[in-house]
């Protein structure tokens, strides 16, 4: 009975596919996770940079970001949402901005965006995509 089973060639493709399918699936999902991780990094980078540039451009005396008012912070968050491609980016995730003296000048703007990234598969499966908070900080001297 067992010998007959070993000699039988029917459905061999199905058996081989059943063996390799999980491998392909894991590989494909892993690539997807990696891509999403890169996208998350790009999103927060774009958001932080856009927010900082907004602060710089509007930092002149009399402009909305002459100091870090609520209106200024709202403006920064709006451009961060635009840059990230997610209208709720700064609602769902953390966006912060601050004006302070630089180590080499009177005024710097620091904008930080944070995104808690979770891969599709558990952390134990891969080493290259892990659950983590992706953070990027842009710092620009204003004056």
């Amino acid at each position, binding site marked *: 009975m067992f010998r007959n089973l070993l000699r039988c*060639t029917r459905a061999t493709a199905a058996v081989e596919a059943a063996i390799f399918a999980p491998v392909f699936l894991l*590989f494909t999902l892993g690539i997807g996770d990696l891509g999403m991780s890169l996208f998350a990094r*790009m999103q927060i980078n*774009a958001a*932080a*940079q856009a927010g900082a*540039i907004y602060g710089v451009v509007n930092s002149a005396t009399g402009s909305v970001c002459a100091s870090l008012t609520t209106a200024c912070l709202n403006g920064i968050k709006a451009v961060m949402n635009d840059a990230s491609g997610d209208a709720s980016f700064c609602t769902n995730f953390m966006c912060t901005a601050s004006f302070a003296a630089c180590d080499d000048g009177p005024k710097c703007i620091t904008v930080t965006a944070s995104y808690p990234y979770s891969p599709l598969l558990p952390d134990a499966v891969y080493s290259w995509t892990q659950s983590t908070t992706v953070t990027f900080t842009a710092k*620009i001297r204003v004056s």
Partner: protein
Amino acid sequence: MNSLRACSAGAVAVVTALVLPLLFGFTSLGIEVGHWYLVQREMQGAADAAAISASAQYIQDVIAGNAASTTYQTTGQHYASLNGFTIPIANTCLVTSSGNNCGSVRALDARPVVCSTPPCMVVEVTQDTFQWLSTKASWEPNGLGAIKPIPTPTLVARSVVNIIFDITTTPPQGSSCILALANDRNAIQVRGNGDIHANCGLLIDGGRDQNARTPNLNSAPNCSDGTAPPCGGLTLAGSNAMVHIRNLTTAASTAGPANQSCPDPTRCFLYNPSTTALPTSAIFTNTATPDPYAGRVFTKPAGVVVTAVAVVSGKTGSGYTNGIRTFTVQGGTGIPAKFTATVTGGKISSAPALIDPGAYTTLPTAPILVVADDGKGSGANVTLTTGNCLPGARFAALPTPIPGRAYCSIPVTKTLNFPTGIYYAEGGDATCMGFCITTGNIRVTTDTTGATFVLTNTAGGTTYAQLAVSGNNTTNLVAPTNDINADGTPCSSGCANTTSGMIIFQDRNAPTTTALSGGGGVTSSNSAAGSTLNSLSGCGNNQTCRTLSGTLYFPKQTLNFSGNGIVQGTCFGLVSKYLDDAGTPTFQNGCLPGTTGGGGSSITSGTFKLAQ
């Protein structure tokens, strides 16, 4: 063998074995390229941040007069690092209209640097992808049966920031507030703990356009410090004396005596920021500033004034309306004098109080009649005491100053407003040296349409009126915008008095200050004619007590400033031969006309925009 070929068992495994490396390879390549784009994006952000930050540094340097500084390169490198990338210092460069230092940048990135309106700050961030492991492990076909590593591009990101300076071109008026005319190294002298704060420029000519030596500018003798004329300069007498100014312009080749003038990082500062040393770019030497008021003229009132009125005994008249009445003197030629007196029972019953000294070229002859303001009554006779000018004590008794009259002095001892017109102080007297505001807790003003005070002499007199303003009082004087007649009426052409913009005009024939000592003492060209020192002081805690909207003009004498306070006004100017400062005044809203205007254009701020 045939059966092996015919066997289809394990076909998937074989196909997988053949395809898997290719799949892995292309997947790796896809990830790699995706990573490049991510890093490229981050590099661009870092380049933008670095270029903007470097621009901020450059703007700061230019405003401080240090445009040649390359500190911006360090700043660019620093902020690229803060944003995640390490770049060489030469990767930050500057494009100006006269050239650039972007050779290293161009060597890294052949793209043209787009800077249509210099200056532009350029930052190049590069990343060699070969250092990444995945790139090292990536291969591509290289002919039949061969492979080679895929190209490992160097990623580049460039940011060009267009720096836009907000250049304020110094207009002929509006930037300078003090002009000293003396051909002396201490034409402007700051001594003791004195500190001139001037949100405007200081001008010193002396020797080039006024007070020039003969036969020519550079004739002997040399200046007091041995330098060749012209000599006019700023002297900081003592280690505590300093200035905070916008700029300094001298006709001389240096700003003042060596080690006692600008530039001096410990005593000579910008007005704002006040801790920044006045840069050499804000010091203009060999630059003439002609006296902008050299063509101004004034004409003293002709004739004599009434200094006192008395009612002739037994000639008190009849039919006058009881009460305090105003009477006008009849007869003579010129402007009639006026006085007030009490009328009782239809007769003048009190001593007359002069309210207008008039101005007579021909005095009335006895019997001198008077007319009441209501036209009623008659018969009163008066006698007049006259003089070349109304003494200060009499002026102080006037209820309201009358313009166009000759006053020996104008002592202001009570809150007083001067109606529009020209007020002549002739010679000064024991009550006041000319125009004096020295009583505390009073307010002295002019009509908003302005008044001019002329400090001169009486006809044939040797003494000239001077200015003395001190004490905790509020002085708000406004110059006429246009030329007016002595009585305050407008003058459109051929004016005997050119008053526009002038608060105080001191006669050019007044005795001249020939030297100013380090202690503030003055030497006069005619000591018998009195001092040549005019004075103006602040008033301590009442910082804004001096509002002077116009020019104070002392072309031959010295103005001493003492005390603390802000001299403000819509258009302030001071022209004097010497300025001696022992106090801490703050001058604002400088408004001297002229062609140099404190040295021309100055950069006040800068902004930037991303250009590439």
